[in-house]
């Protein structure tokens, strides 16, 4: 049942991402990315190998089905998947019943959720902007673009998680 739930979530987030890529072109320098949410919200106990492969697959599918640079989303999602455990390690709590470190996104307070999203989107957007940015642009331009993309996407991701995804996952 859980597997079906995640496959369904995978498809929904992918479609949402394709719709964003196709119709929400707010600004040439702003990219609305929903797919990092899939990498972030996959079960905490999933192996890093599977996480990286899922990130790679969802990123590559997005690249292939949208009008972007093939491999760009895949590279960033794989990096995010590889570093997810590192990001979430300080957020885990000790579960007395299972006697293991547990991570439950549903119990996250707003501050903790924003921190998680902020760290994840930074990991996603730093390589994204560096690879995607036009040639000859300075550090200031790249930094502003990273900050803008992270800020806007964290707000959107926070709303999505609070309003819909948290209930689903």
């Amino acid at each position, binding site marked *: 049942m859980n597997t079906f739930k995640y496959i369904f979530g995978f498809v929904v987030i992918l479609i949402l991402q394709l719709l964003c890529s196709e119709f929400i072109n707010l600004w040439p320098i702003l990219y609305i990315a929903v797919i990092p949410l899939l990498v972030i919200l996959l079960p905490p106990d999933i192996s890093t190998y599977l996480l990286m*492969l899922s990130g790679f697959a969802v990123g590559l599918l997005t*690249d292939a089905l949208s009008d972007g*640079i*093939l*491999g*760009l989303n895949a590279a960033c999602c*794989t*990096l995010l998947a590889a570093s997810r455990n590192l990001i979430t390690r300080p957020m885990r709590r000790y579960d007395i019943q299972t006697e293991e470190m547990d991570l439950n996104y549903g119990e996250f307070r707003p501050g903790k959720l924003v921190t998680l999203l902020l760290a994840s989107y930074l990991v996603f957007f730093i390589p994204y902007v560096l*690879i*995607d940015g036009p040639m000859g642009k300075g550090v200031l331009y790249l930094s502003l673009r990273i900050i803008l993309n992270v800020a806007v996407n964290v707000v959107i991701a926070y709303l999505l998680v609070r309003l819909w995804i948290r209930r689903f996952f």
Partner: protein
Amino acid sequence: MKLPPLIYNSIGKFLVFAALEAVCLLLIVRNSTVQSSRVMEGVRTVQSFFWEKSAAIKNYTALRGTNKDLVEENARLTQQNARLREYITRIQGEGKLDEISSQIRGGVGDSALTGYSFTLAKVIKNTLNTTHNYLIIDKGERDGVTEDLGVITPSGVVGIVRGAGPRFSYVMSLLNLRQSISAKLGRGAGLGTLKWDGGSIRKAYLTEVALNTEVQKGDTVFTSGNSSFFPPDIPVGKALSYNIEDGMYKKVEVELLQDFSNLDYVIVIRNEDKREIDSLSAINNSYLK
């Protein structure tokens, strides 16, 4: 020694991550020109860093040879100096010193190198094992090195700069089948084209030499000065033998003076009049179109 499972696991994760990222990078490079050039720029920066370091190590280990060359050069200059002193003493005794000095000042003895500027560069990479050899030198556009400049050493001609980046330049070696330079046999006639045939790195061929040119073993081959790359009369090699090609020209086998396997530093030559010469040559080319 057995490694703990945690380390095996970490290595495994890193390898999978590296493989996936490599696939992504490959896709990006193949599908986007801008990203491709950016990645290649990064690769070249890393490459040149390693070349620079390996060249520094090679130069350090070759210091004994460099020192030997310097001692030989020093001995040759000392000998030349002694000869000149002897010559000056002799003409002073004959009372001709003032006359010759005024002749030199008047331009009779002007150096063939007037109108050229020189930049010393370190060789970072030097290939010898292909038929299209090249060098990378540590001077680029920031140092005034641009495309189409000649490269020499005190021993002879090395090649021509065919591409210049901000910090490094690509030199097409004389040991490259696509390279040819205008040269002459002796200081007089005997013009021809010096080309490498892809064989020994110590031999090249002076082709298209007129049949009436006398060739003797040991004759020095110099740059002709007919191109804007090199000044005239830079020694390139010594004639070894010749044969007649198609009954029309002589093809002279030349032993190169430059030992390409031992290149540490080179001199980039800029012909200050090159732009003017090239623009005049372009007029002729426009008539040919």
